[in-house]
């Protein structure tokens, strides 16, 4: 009985030593990975701040104004003016949907027939 106990505790010591050895290396690997990730994060943060700065630089009002002027033919953008405010009364009522077609339609009709507009 006592011999079994000795053998078991000896085996337990070996197992624990092996576990501690593995944990040690796993921890060091994790720390290395964290360091690599932190370096990567720092790099990405730097890149992000450069991108932010570039975004701000490309969107500076002077440049946008010049671009709007240069592309006036296509975009037709003008500075905002008081006249561009609309009134609720100026908004048209939405078109009602067309009724379901449940009758034969003469596709050779001369005039398009729209009902319910």
């Amino acid at each position, binding site marked *: 009985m006592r011999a079994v106990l000795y053998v078991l505790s000896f085996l337990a010591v070996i197992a624990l030593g092996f576990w501690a050895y593995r944990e040690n290396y796993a921890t060091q690997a*994790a*720390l290395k990975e*964290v*360091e690599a990730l*932190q370096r990567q*994060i*720092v790099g990405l*943060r*730097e890149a992000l*701040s*450069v991108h*932010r*700065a*570039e*975004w*701000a*630089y490309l*969107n*500076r*009002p*002077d440049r946008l*104004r010049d671009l709007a002027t240069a592309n006036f033919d296509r975009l037709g953008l003008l*500075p*905002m*003016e*008081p*006249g*561009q*405010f609309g*009134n609720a*009364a*100026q908004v048209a009522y939405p078109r009602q949907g067309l009724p379901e077609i449940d009758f034969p339609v003469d596709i050779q009709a001369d005039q398009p027939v729209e009902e319910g507009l």
Partner: protein
Amino acid sequence: MRTPLRPLARILQAREDGLNPDQIEKENLRLRHEAMRDKARGRAEVRLLILCIAFVGAFGAIGARMGLMAATQPVEPRASAPGAEIIAQRADITDRNGRILATNMTTHALYAHPKVMVDPKSVATKLAAIFPDLDAKALERRFTDGRSFVWIRRVLSPEQMQLVHEIGDPGLLFGPREMRLYPNGTLAAHVLGGSSFGAEGVHSAEVIGTAGIEKALDARLRDPAQAGTPLTLSIDLSLQATVEEVLGAGMTMLNAKGAAAILMDVRTGEILALASLPTFDPNDRPNPLVDPKAEPGDSPLFNRAVQGVYELGSTFKIFATAQAMELGLVTPETMVDANAPMTWGKHKIKEFENKNYGPLLSVTDVIAKSSNVGTAHIALMIGPLRQQAFLKALGFFEPTPVELVEAPGARPLIPKRWPEIVTITTSYGHGMSASPMHLAAAYAAIANGGVMIKPTLLKREGPTTGVRVMSEKTAMDSVAMLRRVVTEGTASLGEVPGYEVAGKTGTADKPRKSGGYYDDKVINTFASVFPASNPQYVLIVTLDEPMDTTLSEPRRTAGWTAVPVASEIIRRVAPLMGLRPKLEPPATDAVTAASN
């Protein structure tokens, strides 16, 4: 085994010998007590020893740990997650909507170790080819005169850095730098100010603010605990750009030397746009003027809106009438003496172009027609002491508290003595000088119902509290009078359909350095409030030496210069702020109630 105190054998023996058996008992008792004492002492000694070892162990452990900590190199905790705090050494500055006004960029500085340089002559020539502002000869001299360290450039662009790399000399070295960048160029330059490097080392350099808000809030921007949170200004980038564009166009058209504009929210005191022209690029801040004869206003660094302490002219008249109404001396309909010219001692108070609006004029018309004489009579009713107290309450005696490093230096110029003639001239804005920022704060107090608020460049959440300087009724009546100036007075060009502009013009002659005033140099100001029915914004426009030359005779009054510029600014910025124009309702399509 316990020894009996009276062992029978010895007692009997003693009795036989005729001795006292009690002696034996006493002796035994003594021996027993001695044994007990020795045992107790032994135990106590052991305890003391254990305690002693424990203390020595504990102190030894602490001492060893301290020694270890002192002797080893500090190591950053490797396992903890990186905080967002230490990204940049200086916080970003954004506008009120989070658009970036100032940020940091990583770049490199270039320095040289001439002692390890292989070929100083060729390095100097190649460097001069990359950087045209460097002189090859001077550079070579510095490389060869025996020094072991030379700074060459503070910041490099990536292309320049690559070119320097390609020289390939081991004596040329790069140090990392964080550089302040203002992506919008000249926009809001006077608000931001600028920055430069403070203490410089090879591995890093501190970035310090040199002017504007960068310097005024330098401690906040450099605080490592707040480096991750950008400083949010009250400035709106779109409004700022629009104001600067329109003001610049107006300044060119009217041949003005300079111009300034302030757009402010009257309830919170937030400054939405602050422009001063001519302007500069904070990325490449020009040097201050060194010519002792030059006026500070000649430098583009001069912030006319905050530092420009001018006589603001007739824009002051509304303060006299507001105070008189507040004191109950007049109502808007009261008729006052406006018979020009008015004689006071040896002084003669005249109207513009020697007109005469009198003999009597209602208080409203005094403002609408901008009558100097009428205002002078109202000011005399108020008296010097009360006038001073009121102007003090409106902040005209102190520098403005706005968060710019230039602000505390811009102290208003107040007459030392305050006789009645000063009361008269001050009432129409002469003899006393203040900055457009002072005027904006005082007009905001009129516009928001009589509460003096603190102008600020930082975004505020919700309205702020302030000191009440006039009743709501007085403030409302004053705004109505200012509205009359635009509808039928001197600022008729200021009308913007739908936005009910109210305001007051001011034309002041520029003072000569030698004393007296110039005949043909003026400062024109238009202080406006809009919309008049529910004032929300104050706009101050100041033009320095403008001249309208569209007609044969040049015109220099504010009504022809500052007012049209201000009205164009309002027309452009009001829609951007989401302010709906109040127009006549469309009558044609509207549904009308009708009955048979």
